């Protein structure tokens, strides 16, 4: 799929609108705790937001509430200047791409895509023009008369995307749309989605549990944990400065190492034998990414196991305290022990009780 167009859709498309979520809360009937306790966020116009979190964190519920598929009993959802939380889905101007595509099995590809236009009573000539244009953009022109059952997974996915963008929606919602594709197709489609988003300019909200999708697609990533926003920031910031141990442990492959440490008399003893200054005494979690650990100097640690990934290997070490430490290393290494040291500027610090980042307490020299 190459996105070459004489007349880019973006020229015809309405630009996206910003989305304000204020004090949104939801408890399912019969549940002990709310799936979303109290959520406030502002998604900028035209921004691509990825909602990332483990299963059950409330990300799909949030998406469905934006779409109007689930009631939002408490709080407000504002698209631009319109308050939409009480509106029916069809009055909100959203389009959605579903995980299982949800293509109508009894309709052809063309009918699937123009169904919303028929309902909106768009004149036939315009409907046909728009179907042709979207089909060309998504390379579906040869498939317009087929039924969904005659398409491959990737083709169905593109029809689902075509159906969503044909109405030029102000808000485009994605509910784990790539999770049913195989790995190779997922990579391709991911890049195409990013290009597509730049073209059509709709405010996009993309739900996933795949961190690679989040890092590659998002302008900003909203990390949800038990219905609460752990961090809402650009991918680079989430990687460089995770706001909590949850974020630190969730992102990265392998994720950040978290080691229990104690600060005494203004100093923390590091597992590599060195120390670092700390402005407060007490218990902390020390964080360091496997790829930031320096090899060849410092304390010697025993190798527990190696995972060879071709481009690099991941080695699990045992610290002197008995904790596990993962480091990434060039491929093909051998030996029972490794010398490692922690560069000071790669260290993160989290409060042991709240799990929140307290990076500013570190005194780097």
């Amino acid at each position, binding site marked *: 799929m190459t996105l070459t167009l004489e007349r880019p859709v973006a020229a015809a498309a309405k630009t996206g609108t910003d989305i304000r979520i204020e004090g949104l809360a939801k408890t399912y009937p019969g549940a002990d705790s709310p799936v979303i306790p109290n959520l406030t966020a502002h998604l900028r116009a035209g921004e691509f937001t990825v909602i990332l979190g483990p299963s059950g964190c409330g990300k799909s519920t949030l998406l469905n509430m934006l779409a109007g598929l689930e009631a939002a009993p408490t709080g407000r959802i504002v698209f631009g200047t319109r308050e939409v939380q009480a509106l029916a*889905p*069809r009055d909100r101007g959203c389009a*959605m791409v579903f995980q299982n595509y949800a293509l109508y*099995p009894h309709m052809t590809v063309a009918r699937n895509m123009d*169904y*919303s236009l028929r309902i909106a009573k768009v004149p036939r000539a315009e409907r046909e023009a728009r179907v042709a244009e979207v089909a060309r953009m998504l390379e579906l022109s040869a498939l317009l008369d087929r039924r969904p059952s005659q398409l491959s997974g990737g083709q169905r996915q593109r029809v689902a995307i075509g*159906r969503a963008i044909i109405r030029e929606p102000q808000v485009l919602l994605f509910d784990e749309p790539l999770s049913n594709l195989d790995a190779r197709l997922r990579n391709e489609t991911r890049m195409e989605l990013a290009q597509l988003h730049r073209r059509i300019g709709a405010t996009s909200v993309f739900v996933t549990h795949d961190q690679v999708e989040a890092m590659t697609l998002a302008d900003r990533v909203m990390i949800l944990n038990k219905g609460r926003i752990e961090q809402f920031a650009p991918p680079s910031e989430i990687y460089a400065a995770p706001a909590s141990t949850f974020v630190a442990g969730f992102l990265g492959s392998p994720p950040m190492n978290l080691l229990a440490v104690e600060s005494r008399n203004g100093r923390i003893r590091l597992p590599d034998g060195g120390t670092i200054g700390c402005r407060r005494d007490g218990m902390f979690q020390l964080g360091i990414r496997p790829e930031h650990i320096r090899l060849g100097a410092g304390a010697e640690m025993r190798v527990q196991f190696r995972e060879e990934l071709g481009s690099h290997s991941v080695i699990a070490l045992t610290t002197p305290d008995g904790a596990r430490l993962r480091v990434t290393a060039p491929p093909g290494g051998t030996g029972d022990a490794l010398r490692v040291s922690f560069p000071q500027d790669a260290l993160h610090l989290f409060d042991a009780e709240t799990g929140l980042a307290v990076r500013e307490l570190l005194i780097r020299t």
Partner: protein
Amino acid sequence: MTQSPFRSRPMALLFLSPLILLTALFFYWPVAEAIRWSFFLEQPFGGESTFVGFANFRRVLSDPEFWKSLKLTGIFMVTASVPAVLVPLMLAMAADRGLRTSRIARNVLVWPKGVAGASIGVIFGFIFNPFVGILTPLNQLWPGIWSPGTDGVDAFITLIVANLWNGIPFNFVILLAGLQALPDTYAKAAALDGAGPWRQALDIRLPLLAPQLFFVLVLEFTESIINAFGLIDTMTRGGPGGATTLLVYKIYADGFKGYDLSGASTQTVLLMIFVLLIAAAQFLLMERRVKYER
């Protein structure tokens, strides 16, 4: 299916044998007998029978009474089956929407399944009685307007209503099951495409329900031909003036009241052919249209 779950064929046959035996004894054997009798002249009280070739068929097919009852059977088939599918369809769609009372309705609507056709006939005979039934006030306003005992159309209507009531539970269950098997993402996608409840029902749910609709329609067509017997026998006894003598009732009357066993057997064979043709026509005309793959 490429592999049998049974190690040996005799084992499979052994497990199947009770069902095969029952079907053969109570279905295929009577059918074979009926076909045989239609070529013989049978004595009403047993005794020897004479082979007469197609004489029975010639006699029946030249009888205007036969054609009249076949026509009534056709009319009943269409006028009774269509509401007996449409009403359960509407009820099932309402119940599927999860309206406030749909849980209770789902149960209540299945109960008539437990009532035998003859009992339904007795009850509806009472309900539609022109003197004590629910339509009695009509007769007080316009004397004689409701009279199933003397008016053939009124009698026919009572049969249709009783048949509808009889058909609701089964068709309702099948259609509701079909609706509930549809993934709810279709409804979600349609809602986002801008379709309201009515558009969703017409454009999405109804077409996707086509296989189940086809199934109940085929069954209802054949059932209405055969099952009307219990209703007719208890409510109208074929009257007034033969207005409700459908073929299935005529066969009974000819065979067991008129002791014309050969004629009844011949008409049975003709009725079977009629039902076969109807079912075959439905499959030929409709089956290809209702198939879709998920």
